[in-house]
């Protein structure tokens, strides 16, 4: 056994790039452990977990390289792979020292160097997002804040500063937007059309857009506002601005607001304001006893005189025998998880979760429970210091393997989200785990959020999943209903 531990001071790379580097190094035959990461608190913890000592004075600006391999020769090969991967992760180009190629270090500088810059996309770690977003506003840019873990008082300050300048702040925790046909963050490719979205929910708007596209309609713009915009504290600051913008947009014939049910006062304010607009507004507030996303899409289509949504189902190549037992949902998308829980709880009762419908249904910190449970792997609590599960599926894949081996589990329900920004081939990793499951594995249902225009291609992703034994639905709500039917022993 050979190991190497190295600290490279002042070498900063973003966590997603380093994850890819770590993966390349770990993939070298004979490497048992590999961590290439910035020395953040979380990563130093991981390092200790791997049995390495923390180098003295390691800070978040320093790069840790820790590799454990079978022998010296393997270690040497791993180091070669490391250096190659690190070079690739900088995107090549001219060196920092060269006069012409000095990359901008702040948004302001980048905006000054880019005539026509219109929008900033901020995805730095949450504690640092405010500074970047404020810089963007002061540089005159609209801003999308993908980062989560941003304090609410900072959100309010940013939205007020944006409003004073006539600029829109999308987020924080805004996973999805589409402006002028360009997807920002996690975004599916859909055809242009008459429906404009204002979305406080990233995956909720993705699902809606995919369903509208599948029905043959399309979307003008999707303006994300961040998951907290309709809270009492934030008071729909960005939602009202986005409504005004879409009302002024000639391509938008109908506006749909997608959100969890807001506080009553906020809902009333949004309704009151929507009534003053010349464009009709449909409020799709998702929750118990309300329309699910599929029903909301059908309603929106009806409003513009378009036929409604049909679920698409891809059957598994070899169907497994169904059984009753626990329903286990493992999600990347918070709204998709929420929607599935609402549908399931209606029939099955309590669903334990890290984003529970009721406080007394909360999962303990270890995320274990005997009965029905659903986990949102994209929740703030599980993404601090690591990439979103749509980018880095490892945490969910580990749990999937466990659930597949659990005889108490009757049905596994998962979402797979395609589109720009998401993993290049999410079905492949999932299929690998599914194929490794034993013959007594539970039924696997997948809600596939994507379109035929997405870079991953909807059809080929569905085929990969069905070949591995999963049943695939386009509609998340229909996948959830099917899961409930199996658990209840009603599938025929």
């Amino acid at each position, binding site marked *: 056994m050979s190991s190497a531990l190295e600290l490279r001071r002042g070498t900063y790379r973003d966590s997603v790039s380093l994850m890819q580097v770590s993966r390349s190094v770990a993939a070298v035959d004979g490497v048992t452990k590999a961590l290439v990461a910035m020395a953040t608190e979380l990563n130093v913890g991981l390092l200790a977990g791997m049995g390495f000592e923390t180098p003295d004075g390691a800070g978040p*600006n320093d790069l840790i390289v820790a590799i454990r391999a079978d022998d010296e020769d393997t270690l040497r090969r791993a180091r070669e792979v490391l250096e190659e991967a690190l070079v690739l992760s900088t995107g090549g180009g001219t060196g920092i020292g060269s006069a012409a190629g000095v990359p901008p270090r702040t948004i302001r500088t980048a905006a000054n160097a880019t005539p026509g810059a219109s929008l900033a*996309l901020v995805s730095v770690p949450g504690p640092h997002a405010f500074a970047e977003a404020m810089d963007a506003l002061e540089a005159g840019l609209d801003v999308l804040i993908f980062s989560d873990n941003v304090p609410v008082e900072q959100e309010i300050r940013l939205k007020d500063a944006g409003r004073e300048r*006539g600029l829109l702040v999308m987020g924080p925790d805004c996973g999805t937007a589409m402006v002028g046909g360009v997807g920002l963050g996690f975004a599916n490719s859909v055809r242009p059309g008459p429906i404009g979205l204002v979305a406080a929910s990233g995956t909720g708007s993705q699902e809606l857009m995919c369903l509208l596209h599948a029905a043959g309609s399309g979307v003008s713009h999707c303006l994300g506002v961040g998951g907290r915009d309709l809270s009492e504290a934030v008071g729909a*600051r960005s939602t009202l601005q986005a409504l005004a913008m879409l009302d002024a947009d000639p391509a938008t014939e109908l506006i749909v607001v997608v959100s969890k049910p807001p506080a009553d006062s906020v809902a009333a304010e949004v309704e009151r304001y929507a009534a003053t607009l010349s464009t009709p507004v449909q409020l799709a507030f998702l929750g118990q006893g309300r329309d699910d996303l599929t029903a909301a899409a059908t309603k929106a289509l009806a409003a513009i005189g378009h036929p409604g949504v049909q679920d698409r189902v891809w059957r598994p190549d070899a169907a497994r025998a169904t059984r009753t037992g626990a329903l286990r949902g493992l999600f990347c998308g918070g709204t998709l998880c929420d929607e599935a829980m609402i549908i399931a709880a209606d029939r099955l009762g309590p669903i334990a979760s890290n984003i529970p419908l009721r406080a007394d249904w909360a999962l303990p910190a270890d995320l274990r429970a005997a009965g029905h449970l659903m986990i949102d792997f994209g929740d703030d609590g599980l993404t601090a210091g690591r990439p979103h599960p749509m980018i880095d599926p490892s945490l969910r894949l580990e749990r999937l393997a466990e659930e597949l081996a659990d005889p108490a589990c009757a049905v596994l329900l998962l979402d797979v989200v395609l589109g720009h920004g998401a993993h290049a081939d999410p079905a492949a990793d999932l299929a690998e785990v599914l194929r490794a499951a034993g013959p007594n594995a539970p039924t696997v249902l997948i809600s596939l959020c994507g379109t035929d225009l997405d870079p991953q291609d909807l059809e080929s992703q569905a085929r990969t999943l069905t070949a591995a034994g999963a049943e695939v639905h386009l509609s998340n709500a229909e996948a959830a209903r099917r899961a409930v039917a199996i658990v209840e022993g009603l599938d025929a």
Partner: protein
Amino acid sequence: MSAPNPNGGSLLTRDPSVVTVGAELLADALAAQAVPVTAVDWRPPLPGTADALATVLADARREAANRVAIERVLASTPHLVDVKPASEALGLRAGQFRHAGPPIDWARASGPMKGALIGAVLFEGLANSPEAAEKFLAEGHAELDSCHHHHAVGPMAGVVSPSMWMFELEDTTHGTRAWCSLNEGLGKVLRYGAYGPEVIDRLRWMSAVLGPLLRTAVRAGEAIDIRAIIAQMLQMGDEGHNRNRAGTLMLLRELLPNMIDSGAPTSDIAEAARFVGGNDHFFLNLDMPACKLAMDAGRDVPGSSLVVAMARNGTDFGIQVSGTGDRWYTGPAEVPDGLYLGAYGPDDANPDIGDSAITETAGIGGFAMAAAPAIVRFIGGEVDDALAATRRMYEITLAENPAYQIPVLDFRGTPTGIDVTKVARTGILPQINTGIAGKVAGTGQVGAGLVTPPADCFVAAIRALAEAAPPLG
């Protein structure tokens, strides 16, 4: 809440062009859609500043306060109006001394600071020998204070005593004045901590002959526009800190006719002209008070994160910030990285010293390195390094000075007005060009090179600004 107006921007009508900061993958996703993307090379802020940064950046006063402060800095118009002894200029009395950097006492003073004070005590006739001078100082008979506290600046040790002559500059826009001593030349000189007989003799000649002659010449003509000379020297290969050759000759061109007309003995005029023309740094003591006037104009704007002074006393590096008055934020001064004279080496070097970093504070010196590629050799660098250094300083500054332009950067204005928030955000520290003093009192200059302030100064400053800002939420 009232209904908002439709967005004043044009988000929905323009083709997006996106600036990204953070995950490269999201920038790649945009590039894959053929969208123009400019990616920021982001790094975490200086450790321990994230919360304070958010508070300061959220301060609604900041943007306007910084605009007001920097506009005042850029509007400053320094003119040389007089030359006079420090007793008149600063009202210094016997036993009073001014020095560079934040306040310091004898016990904590470094070698060159002690050497310069010993020399000044000897020069003023307060002691007969270096040993007696040291005793005089150690026993606390001298009253020490920072030049910066008295509208003055001094290079290196920056020691000023009542009999030394000073340039008097007036900012004709703001009606303010600033002072700086006359430059002694290089090598064994008081400001580098030397106090031998040749140092004291030179100071005597400067007070007896050079000062009065310069006064006559300055008073005989119009006030000399120092900003105009700085603007020209930047186009002639000077950066105004470690290279002042063109500036010195332009000053001499202004003064020499009036010196000749003064009726003083021609031997004195010739010696003065030889002394000024032969000292490439003579003009440093004019661009420093010019920069001091500019930065003083930016002082005391509540909410402003503009750095108004960077100064070193050989022990501490200190900065002052517009929004927090006269408070100093200090950290240990670092040893510059540079080239050494003769057999001297890094072991002989004293930590960074002098008020001359006022030039960088005002956007010249190290910030205008691109204008002076000749001196990039101080760090064994290449011309590209000079260009990169100046470009990097645009990241931490509030404005570009339209009066001071850099030809090789297409006449872009020099990066001016360090913003504490930008330093904290980027971790980019101001680049300072500097001379290096020997650490043993009496040695003099041992080299010249580049240095940065300790990051601690900026961490302390951003925290103080956060304390002075209204709480968020």
